[in-house]
């Protein structure tokens, strides 16, 4: 009798070991498999097809060959659609990520020096981040309106010429050089001319929009620094520049690194801000406009998925390219961090 109970209990316990965790994990694992992991394989498979709503024809590596063809130049000397989108994505990532982190680092340091109204100030920096990109983006579209936008009124007030902002496809570097009277050399490669004025506007929006997130994260890292370390450094006559670069920065480097990785991934995936700023507000000519000068890789994927027939396979190939780029960039960041980030 007694042994039978023991056996039953042992059996029950073994069942618990096996089935209970499975039961608790099942919904999550099924969903993660279906919508996050399996899609990578499905995407790879789809990229080998001409695919509309249904698979149409197996075409092997044709989609990838088309990607390569569209990187190279078009007859006029301009890069192809894919090449253009890679260049725009590059400008976008290199322009927004460092700017966001540097500005956020400065603001977080200022906020960390025992200021009054810390809560209110932090909220002010954080509100753009929680506002939806559509609402915040449309508010920006209105500020940047070429005819009656408040930014052009401000430019006039300062005696500067009014700008077309989001409608201006001209690259920024020749434009700035022209403003101070230097001509742009004819043979110079296109990427040196920098992002278009429109793309710079989108990038400025993106920095404004995500700054609060970065500030809060860095602030959290700063608070954990032992105040005695700083006090000791100050006693030794360290000035504030040295304090920031030699003491604070190494101590928060794990936080800064986390932020760098997260922001880079997010920046490579920028779709919403481009979509809203270039096609919202009644005068935009569609996502990626003007003249494809704000065409990030995700916007190009959207274009193939949403606007072009039988292009779903090509969109899948493009998303594999994006995935690969992200993987390489993240790996490089981790390799770099091994040497530079200081963990305790």
């Amino acid at each position: 009798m007694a042994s039978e109970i023991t056996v039953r209990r042992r059996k029950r316990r073994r069942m618990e070991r096996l089935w209970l965790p499975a039961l608790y994990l099942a919904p999550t694992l099924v969903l993660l498999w279906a919508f996050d992991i399996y899609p990578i394989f499905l995407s790879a498979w789809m990229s080998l097809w001409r695919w509309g709503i249904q698979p149409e024809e197996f075409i092997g590596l044709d989609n990838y060959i088309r990607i390569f063809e569209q990187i190279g130049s078009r007859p006029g000397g301009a890069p192809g659609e894919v090449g253009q989108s890679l260049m725009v994505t590059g400008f976008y990532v290199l322009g927004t990520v460092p700017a966001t982190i540097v500005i956020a680092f400065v603001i977080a340091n200022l906020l960390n020096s025992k200021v009054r109204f810390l809560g209110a100030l932090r909220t002010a920096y954080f509100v753009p981040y929680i506002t939806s990109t559509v609402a915040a983006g449309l508010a920006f579209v209105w500020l940047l309106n070429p005819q009656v936008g408040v930014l052009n009124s401000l430019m006039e007030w300062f005696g500067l010429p009014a700008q077309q902002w989001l409608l201006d496809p001209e690259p920024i570097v020749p434009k700035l050089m022209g403003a101070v009277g230097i001509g742009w050399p004819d043979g110079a490669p296109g990427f040196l001319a920098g992002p278009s004025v429109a793309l710079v506007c989108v990038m400025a929006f993106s920095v404004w929009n995500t700054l609060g997130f970065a500030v809060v994260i860095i602030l959290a890292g700063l608070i954990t620094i032992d105040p005695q370390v700083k006090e000791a450094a100050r006693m030794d006559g360290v000035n504030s520049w040295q304090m920031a670069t030699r003491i604070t920065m190494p101590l928060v480097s794990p936080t800064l690194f986390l932020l760098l990785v997260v922001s880079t991934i997010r920046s490579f995936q920028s779709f919403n801000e481009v979509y809203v700023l270039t096609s919202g507000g009644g005068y935009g000519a569609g996502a990626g406009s003007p003249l494809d000068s704000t065409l990030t890789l995700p916007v190009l994927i959207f274009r193939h998925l949403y606007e072009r027939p039988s292009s779903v396979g090509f969109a899948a190939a493009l998303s594999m390219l994006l995935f690969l780029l992200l993987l390489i960039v993240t790996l490089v960041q981790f390799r770099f961090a091994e040497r530079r980030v200081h963990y305790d």
Partner: protein
Amino acid sequence: MALHTIENTTGAPTIVRSPAGPPKKSARTHAAQRWRRKAGRVILYVALIAGAVVMLFPFFWMISSSLKTFQEVNLSPPTMLPSDPQWSNYAEAWEGPPSGFGRYFLNSLIVAVLGTALQLVTGITAAYAFARMKFRFNNLLFMVVLATMMIPFEARIVPNYVLIRQIPLAGGNDLFGDGGSGLYDTYAGMILPGVAGAFAIFLLRQAFMAVPRDYWDAIRMDGASHWTFLWRVLVPMTMPAVLTVVLFGFIGRWNELLWPLIATQSEAIRPVQLGLMAFSGDEGSLYHLLMAATTLVAIPGIIFFLFVQRRFVEGLTAFGVKG
């Protein structure tokens, strides 16, 4: 020199270990130092407040414009504040889209509430298994879950679009997922792909692991099951983490744009962000109405945030420190 003066209780400078210079000179240095510190404080506040003004100006301008007449909003140079606030703009903007904004708000509410609730329940049970149960491959599986955070959204969007169209036995599909449109253009199709959230599981697991084992041993004596322990003891004890997951989930869902755009086509089930985009396409040049609609969409989120901001920032902070 500066390091050698400290302030005593009366406020007069006292010399400590100062090898050179009479007291008079030190007093002057001290005053200069104090003045410099004060100036530094002023510059600090000016910089921080100027920054805050830049951050908030677009919102001020959005609300100010939303209360102007068509003539006033197109004035150049513009007026800072509306000369005669037009509250009726809001009523007009609310009725703007063919079916009104009410329907869009309702859709957003359905998607956000259901999506957040499902994420919370599946996240809590999964986090519990990872934090409290011994089984093979526990760590390995958890690593896999974390790794899914690395998969870019755009890499999933194409296959997800195909997948929800081919869910078997839904939307006229047969057992093999062919023939109909599956979950395309349904609430379920909009909600499902975002339910499993690695970040939510990560946060909850951390919180669950922080609760001492004694609680479990004690309740185990009384013969309670894992299920009772989880929902009656653990969840109430880790409320801050649970609320953080709810807040992040809800705001993320409310602000979603790309997935609903891809996964739906009928305006009747589309969420409010798409409603606002549609409105801006139709009436985008009527900026006073567009800004009224934009304010209507933006303000609920901001008010919600102001009420819960402490929790929200704490949640982010935990993420920042532990990551």
